[in-house]
């Protein structure tokens, strides 16, 4: 049984929790940009937390269901319409065969996650259904979904009426604070530039996608003078090509920082100044261009505590929803 795609949206891709293990060959982990939203969407419809969902950015798709099922939409705030009637986000709702799910204009956030009972059941490639468009891997022929695609649905787990109470949602922030652990090639910029990076306000540039988010608005960085090492290239922002970390912040030419995200390139020749902590990566997935951002300097202990807090929030949600 399938879901028929009537309208595809802007770039709607099939995503799960990704395919770790191939980054050394340049194939990134991928998976949902906002893993929290994907996990909760799956919990709401009684799926395994890592089941494949649709991730739609800025604009929702229009979908017709071929059988009765349950659906939940999480992530960004966007009016959810079933045969034109409003449904709530972060809440599961029943869908009858032949009904059409559509969406209004995006209000806040950037990406919605549409979970269906049983998950999207496209073929697994290298351990995941996640679509990696750059490498034409996963999803449907490695591309975003298109009009008249028929998306296979898996066998439902334990769907039912469930809703997430507002107090368990992440609080909205403006500007968004992204916590950063300085490191990697942090020593390449001057102390004044290091201080300015955290002091100044940045905004999300139009070049923001699954590979990385670019930021602008801050002062160009000054480099600590050095003779460029052999093999790095002559620009002071060049290094001998090395591996990149998920969340790492590269600054080509010292001007616009780029935070690598789920579909990250695995390496390259631009210096990096540290990385956004793992607990804050999901927040980036919900940022639109022009979103105001502050980078906040933290240490390892803070990063690990934030990770723990995120895990506990999910555990609370898991227990709450299991009881419904």
């Amino acid at each position, binding site marked *: 049984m399938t879901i028929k795609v009537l309208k595809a949206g802007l770039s709607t891709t099939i995503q799960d929790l990704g395919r770790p293990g191939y980054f050394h060959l340049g194939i990134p982990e991928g998976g949902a940009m906002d893993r929290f939203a994907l996990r909760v969407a799956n919990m709401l419809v009684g799926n395994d937390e890592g089941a494949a969902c649709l991730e739609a950015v800025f604009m929702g798709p229009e979908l017709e269901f071929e059988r009765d099922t349950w659906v939940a939409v999480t992530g960004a705030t966007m009016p959810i319409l079933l045969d034109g009637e409003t449904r709530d986000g972060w809440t599961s709702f029943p869908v009858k065969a032949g009904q059409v799910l559509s969406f209004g204009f995006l209000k806040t956030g950037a990406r919605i996650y549409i979970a269906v009972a049983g998950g999207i059941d496209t073929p697994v490639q290298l351990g995941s259904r996640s679509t990696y468009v750059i490498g*034409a891997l996963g999803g449907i022929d490695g591309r975003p979904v298109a009009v008249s695609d028929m998306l296979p649905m898996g066998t439902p787990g334990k769907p039912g009426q469930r809703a997430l109470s507002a107090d368990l949602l992440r609080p909205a922030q403006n500007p968004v604070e992204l916590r950063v652990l300085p490191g990697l090639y942090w020593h390449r910029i001057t102390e004044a530039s290091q201080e300015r990076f955290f002091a100044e306000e940045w905004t999300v540039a139009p070049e923001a996608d699954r590979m990385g988010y670019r930021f602008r608005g801050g002062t160009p960085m000054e480099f600590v003078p050095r003779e460029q*090492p052999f093999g790095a*290239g002559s620009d002071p922002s060049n290094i001998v090509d090395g*591996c990149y970390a998920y969340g790492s912040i590269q600054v080509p*030419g010292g001007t616009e920082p780029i935070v690598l995200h789920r579909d990250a390139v695995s*390496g390259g020749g631009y210096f990096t100044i540290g990385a956004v902590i793992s607990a804050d990566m999901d927040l980036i997935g919900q940022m639109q261009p022009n979103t105001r951002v502050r980078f906040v300097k933290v240490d390892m202990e803070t990063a690990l505590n934030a990770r723990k807090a995120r895990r506990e929030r999910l555990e609370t949600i898991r227990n709450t929803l299991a009881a419904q």
Partner: protein
Amino acid sequence: MKTRYTFGGDEHIFVEMDDEMSLEAFFKAIAISRAVQAANIDGVTEILPANASFEVRFNPDIIHPDDMMARLKELEGTANTAEPRMTTRIIEVPVYYQDPWTHETLMRFRERHQDPSATDLEYAARINGYDSVEAFIEAHHAQPWFVSMVGFVSGLPFLYQLVEREKQIEVPKYLRPRTDTPKLTVGYGGCFSCIYSVRGAGGYQMFGITPMPIYDPQQKVSYLKDFMVFFRPGDIVKFAPVDRETYDRIVAEVEAGTFTPRMAEVTFDLDAFNADMRGTNARLMEALNDN
């Protein structure tokens, strides 16, 4: 060589063997990454060897970052005693230099380049002291290359030229990365050549294009049926210049499933190479001819 350890957020440790490129740094990075793999440390999720560095990704819920760091430092000693020698393969990669597709692309991104009035090849030839683009192209394909890293995007090889350091080509990357690069472009940045496995963003200078696919997620290409990625670290590459006619013929052969890359098994010994570079290269290329 001075090893430098640093955290990349709470899930990665980045280890730089040296801030400059050398085969010694590469062999040390690959030796440690193999030692980490063999140690089978609980919580390690990815091991990424690179040109002169390597990175470990780990789950900090399973192993504390400080403990992970301590384990890596312990393993550095093991790697220092590893012999810089490997059994590998040499592969001939046909290249159509100055092709129309990379030319069209480089013209579209001129404002991101150091020298908007020249092509990437003209610029690279000039700053490396060559009289002509032709002489520069000859220098690019005459001697073999060593795959010192696979990554960036799906299966992209970074290639290090097997010549004396003073003869190695060096060029800067684009001032700002391009948003487009044709699939199978032969590029250059720093002291590395590369082959872009897929179409996409890139910062390397563009010299030409190969008709030989090196990544195929559908695994339809005859020599990529076992695994979708062709290159692995340690492979040796000999570029062979081809004209448009040969390029088109190979494209058709790949399509028909009749193209097989020319390759042979060889041993690469770093000490032997350092003692006699041209002699070692001649023997490597000879293996290709014997096959």
